[in-house]
């Protein structure tokens, strides 16, 4: 995922904003990311991704965060999730 791509698609919160927020506020729990422009509080699709992001950041990783996620696919899968309420790929 690129820094300017949105992790939270409901509130359009980019990876860059979330990383800056974490660097600034040093959140101890993933749910604190919801204070960053409401990330994760809309459809909840991005919550596992926020948890993953927080985990990577907590382990000291600073570059290539969420690098393993293809944003296009991430967005597509969310469309399915919003229709059915079910995640086709756990952890996405």
């Amino acid at each position, binding site marked *: 995922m690129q820094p300017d791509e949105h992790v939270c698609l409901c*509130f*359009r919160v980019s990876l860059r904003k979330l990383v800056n927020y974490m660097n600034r506020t*040093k959140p*101890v*729990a*993933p*749910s604190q990311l*919801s204070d960053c*422009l*409401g990330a*994760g*509080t809309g459809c*909840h699709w991005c*919550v596992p991704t*926020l948890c993953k992001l927080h985990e990577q950041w907590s382990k000291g990783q600073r570059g290539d965060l969420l690098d393993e996620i293809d944003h296009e696919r991430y967005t597509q899968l969310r469309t399915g999730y919003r229709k059915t309420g079910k995640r086709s790929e756990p952890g996405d």
Partner: protein
Amino acid sequence: MHHRCLFSLLILCLSLVASTPTHAQDQVSDQDRIKALEQQNRELSEQLAQKLQEIERLKSQIQDLRKRLAPGLEAPAQDARPATTGQEEQSIDSFSTLRLLLENDYFNDMRDTPWPEGSGREVRTQQNAYLKALNRWISLMNRKWQQKIRWPVILQDARVRGKSLSCTVIALDPVDARPLGEPFSITLDDRMARRFSAQGGLRVGQEYILTGMLNPRVYYDQERPEPVVEGFDRKFLGRFVCFNPSITVQSFSLWNKESSSDEDG
């Protein structure tokens, strides 16, 4: 006695001689260990400093929240009237504050009334009584926290929806323009939309003053005995109770900070 001393000395010398080759290695590994421990110590000290900073931040946040909630704690829920009628009404500056006030009320009013678990006729009767009380509480909250608002906001997005405009905004602190809580949507009717398009349109990133009526929209949701995702479910207030606030917009205009502070002062 003399022999014993000599024997002890011999043992000591032997042990010293025996330990000499490994001693240098031990020293090296000890130094490594010391370095590693020093590094660990530095990291832990840094973490401690961060945690202390975090504690201080949370303490001041708690104090701030207590100050905000103080009038709400004093007022018994049964006597609560629509906030708009009171002289000393608790003014709400964002949906986040509304959430805190509702959570506070829910805690105060419902904490002594646990959900009756189990089955059977008696339990069902108790559950029905609980739901009746809950619905009364919901109506009360919707009256209590409905109020006129005048919030500075920053525009995040604006899209045309038929003749009206759907805007995403974030409430701002009137003092330092700090964002308060998450973004929310408002609808500007065709009259306001026409006015803005005549003035060259709305600008994303621009600060505006939003006035209107805040509707808490607390509602019963039997599908929600618990939050959907712990920590991320901002609609959830308690068992079977959610809220989805909205604002009926009355005006939306550019934020003139100087005249605002005059009015506030």
